[in-house]
């Protein structure tokens, strides 16, 4: 189902989209660099008024922002990976080779992750370096915190990309999937999470599970780590199943 040659082909298709890659770097590395830069300048100007650009608090804040940005980048890259063959009309020609449609679909997820995860890893590493190097005598983030937060960012990128690939294969439309996912992750999910009477049902909201894994949110829905991991796996499995089914059944 996961063919290395097909995965390489999907990576090539994404790697050549320079605009998408530039936007992804701006939204991740660019934004965390901007946050650190502004904080460093303000701290240098008035160290008593403004905290250092590094240290535990700055690190957690930056990783929270990075997690949010990975929801955006994962949606963009995943939706592109999931819909680009369909939107360009190439999927018909690929399917006409007799190659399993499941293999054609399956390669898109690792293809998208191969783009998203290095970006997420690079940005997370940059935040960690800033957190350690710019602590200015304050408490620096420890290894456990860096590990958890990095895992959260990487999981966010991978899960969002996977869900976007599945939804894009289901709908055949990149733009619709990006709009829906951004609307859900950035607007609807926080609203739903704030409705207390929903109780434990809020555990099923993916961004809550991702925040739990990364321990980056200052507030959030309490849930166990195992529950969070199960929620993430369930979302990924559902998106994969939906995309795989539609890819197999689609008449083109």
């Amino acid at each position, binding site marked *: 189902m996961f*063919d290395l*040659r*097909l995965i*390489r*082909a999907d990576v*090539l*298709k994404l790697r*050549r*989209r320079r605009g998408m890659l530039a936007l992804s770097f701006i939204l991740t590395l660019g934004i965390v660099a901007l946050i650190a830069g502004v904080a460093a300048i303000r701290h240098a100007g008035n160290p008593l008024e403004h905290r250092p650009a590094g240290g535990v608090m700055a690190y957690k804040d930056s990783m929270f922002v990075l997690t949010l940005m990975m929801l955006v980048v994962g949606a963009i890259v995943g939706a592109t990976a999931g819909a*680009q063959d369909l939107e*360009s*009309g*190439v999927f*018909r*020609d*690929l*399917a*006409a*080779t*007799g*190659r*399993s449609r499941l293999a*054609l679909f399956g390669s898109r997820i690792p293809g998208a992750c191969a783009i998203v995860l290095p970006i997420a890893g690079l940005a997370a590493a940059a935040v960690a370096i800033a957190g350690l190097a710019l602590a200015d005598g304050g408490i620096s983030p420890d290894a456990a915190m860096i590990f958890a937060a990095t895992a959260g960012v990487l999981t966010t990128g991978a899960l969002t990309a996977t869900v976007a690939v599945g939804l894009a294969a289901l709908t055949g439309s990149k733009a619709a999937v990006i709009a829906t996912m951004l609307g859900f992750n950035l607007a609807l999910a926080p609203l739903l999470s704030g409705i207390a009477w929903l109780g434990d049902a809020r555990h099923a909201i993916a961004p809550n599970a991702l925040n739990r894994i990364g321990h980056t949110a200052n507030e959030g829905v309490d849930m166990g780590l195992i529950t969070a991991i199960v929620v993430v796996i369930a979302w990924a499995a559902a998106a994969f199943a939906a995309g795989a089914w539609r890819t197999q059944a689609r*008449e*083109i």
Partner: protein
Amino acid sequence: MSTQHDASHRNHDAPVNSRSLVPSSLAVQTLGVGKRFGSRAALADVDLEVPRGCAFGLLGPNGAGKTTLIRLLLGLAAPTAGQMRLLGRKLPSGSADALARVGAIIEEPRFHPHLSGRENLAIHAAARERAAYARIDGALARVVLTARADDRVKSYSMGMRQRLGIARCLLADPELLILDEPMNGLDPAGIGELRDLIRALVDEGRTVLLSSHLLDEIERTCDAAAILDDGKVIAQGRLDELTAGGPRAIDITCSHPDQAALQLRGVPGIAQVTDHAGVLRVELGPEAAADREVISELLRRLLSAGFAIERVSPVAVSLEQRFLTMTTRLEDRS
């Protein structure tokens, strides 16, 4: 269904009349294939036999079902009735093996516009056998695209995209090429080059199934054809068979054609004699003898009456004329 079959092309081990499909040497064989979209039948009871090693035209007016039939053969849609074989393998169970040896262009060739021609072929090669990568340079050279292979496809003309589509087909080292309207968007020179390429591919022993509404091109390129109309195959066979059976006529260029026409009236077997812009057109009735005998008799009468004969030529019925007499006109359908 009135269907003309080429007996020499028929696989006698797999008679269609037996209403069953058995392994055959035919490149394409369908039996009773149908496809419905809701209440509308796009194809109905299609029996088609495409012999190996020839260029085979699939003709039909717009909406006749050509592309639908091609989509079924390529596994892009499922038939609602009937059986199909591709390169001897039953579909859909043997589709993966069969399609590995089929190169196809469906409607217009599509590519990732942000990738180069070479990269697009590499993407396609990834879905093929490993050896397909090694065929990329050869395929580009064959369609004369080597010089532009590293340019982005979005800068290609329609003709270049068609050629890149053919190159993509060649990555499979195909036994069968299915080309749906490959002449679309090509200039006359491009059409001529594509025609030569198709003939060269056939000379290599490959089969080319060519769908087109350009009847003249089918006539120039193909050895045999099938005519689809309103979802049904109404005729198939060698081109000379398809064009046979129409009204027979002989053109005679001679002195004083108006007087010569009077001279020939009443000759047995002749239905009508008319003056066609200075050329005498003699239309033969169904009871007329063979052309050789009729022409001998006509010449004997004209020469004995003192007319000077410049040229005598049987009027060939073109595929286009036969096509138009066989297929449903749009106004007839409505």
